[in-house]
């Protein structure tokens, strides 16, 4: 699978949010405004790339040599949680404005299914180091794409006369449903 097809398949064809159902919690929570969606997307892509690199190292140099695949889940999530906390502290120290726009989302990322999903799929599909990174960047791009489209639509929704009971999460789900339908059109592209 050439890198480009890998990127496109991760970003669009098998979009992490719309066809694999990963990362729905931030998808509903953060997609109120386009700028917060973009910074959330960047934060997620950034953490995904580091996670892909670190989990590849841990998996291939610690877990497989010692047949510890049972520790896969535990070690990965420990890595992700600590990494996110380190990144948050780092950003908080280095630049306050970046922290204000980006940092508040970082605690949300720890419980983000997309990151853990990415780590597990990369291991399941036995991607090499470079493939893993491209897969992570593609998945991050797909996540950001879905989030930004959703944020754009939801900004319009503010003005629309949404029926009272569907306001908020209900209408978001239905709009996400139609988005998933659209993304299904990409199936078979790769």
């Amino acid at each position: 699978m050439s890198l480009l097809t890998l990127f496109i398949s991760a970003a669009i064809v098998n979009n992490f949010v719309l066809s694999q159902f990963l990362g729905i919690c931030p998808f509903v929570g953060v997609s109120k405004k386009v700028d917060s969606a973009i910074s959330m997307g960047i934060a997620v892509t950034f953490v995904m790339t580091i996670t892909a690199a670190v989990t590849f190292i841990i998996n291939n140099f610690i877990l497989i040599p010692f047949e510890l695949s049972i520790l896969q889940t535990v070690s990965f999530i420990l890595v992700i949680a600590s990494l996110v906390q380190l990144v948050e502290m780092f950003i908080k120290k280095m630049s306050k404005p970046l922290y204000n726009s980006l940092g508040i989302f970082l605690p949300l990322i720890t419980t983000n299914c997309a990151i853990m999903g990415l780590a597990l799929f990369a291991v399941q599909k036995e991607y090499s180091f470079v493939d893993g990174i491209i897969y992570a960047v593609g998945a991050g791009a797909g996540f950001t794409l879905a989030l930004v489209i959703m944020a754009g639509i939801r900004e319009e929704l503010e003005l629309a006369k949404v029926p009272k009971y569907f306001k908020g999460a209900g209408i978001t789900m239905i709009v996400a449903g139609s988005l998933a339908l659209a993304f299904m059109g990409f199936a078979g592209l790769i």
Partner: protein
Amino acid sequence: MAKKSNSLTYEVVKGLWNENPVLIQLLGLCPTLAVTNSAVNGVAMGLATTFVLLCSSILISVIRKIIPAQVRIASYIVVIATFVTVVDKFLAAYTPDISKALGAFIPLIVVNCLILGRQEAFASKNNVGRSILDGIGMGIGFTWVLTLLGMIRELLGEGSIFAISIMPESFNTWLVMILPPGAFLTLGIFIGLSNWINERRVN
């Protein structure tokens, strides 16, 4: 919400409806959408999550005093991950077909926002007894929503419930119900419905 004043029964009941994890708090949506293409999967995922939620609530509410603040999230997550792997291996060993059906979504219970959410919001602030009740309430609340969602999607998507075919042969199945869009639409309508029911109940 005041922490002390809730009576014990309220702790359990609140998870079922008025603080239902999926419909009201919008937690744990990833497995809710992904796995409920059949009722059996819904039940299995619900019970697996409840087991993990219960065990981790108990353990975390016991050790909450000794965990320093900076390592709080990391240690909670390691505890949850341990229980998840236990469940994952248990299912793979004793019920292989369910494990195959649920596939990658069992390890993803670790990052299920519901569990870490409850630990942060509740188990880390209350004693063991209350956390158990809260865990049971939230778990059952999560399970019945998943099962109902699974039933509806299976009924419309394959014309059967728990693999017993119900719909007449003439009914051509709504393929979309099994696919991702169906999941989003059904959950959206579910949330709308529950808001409406809440509205009627209030006045």
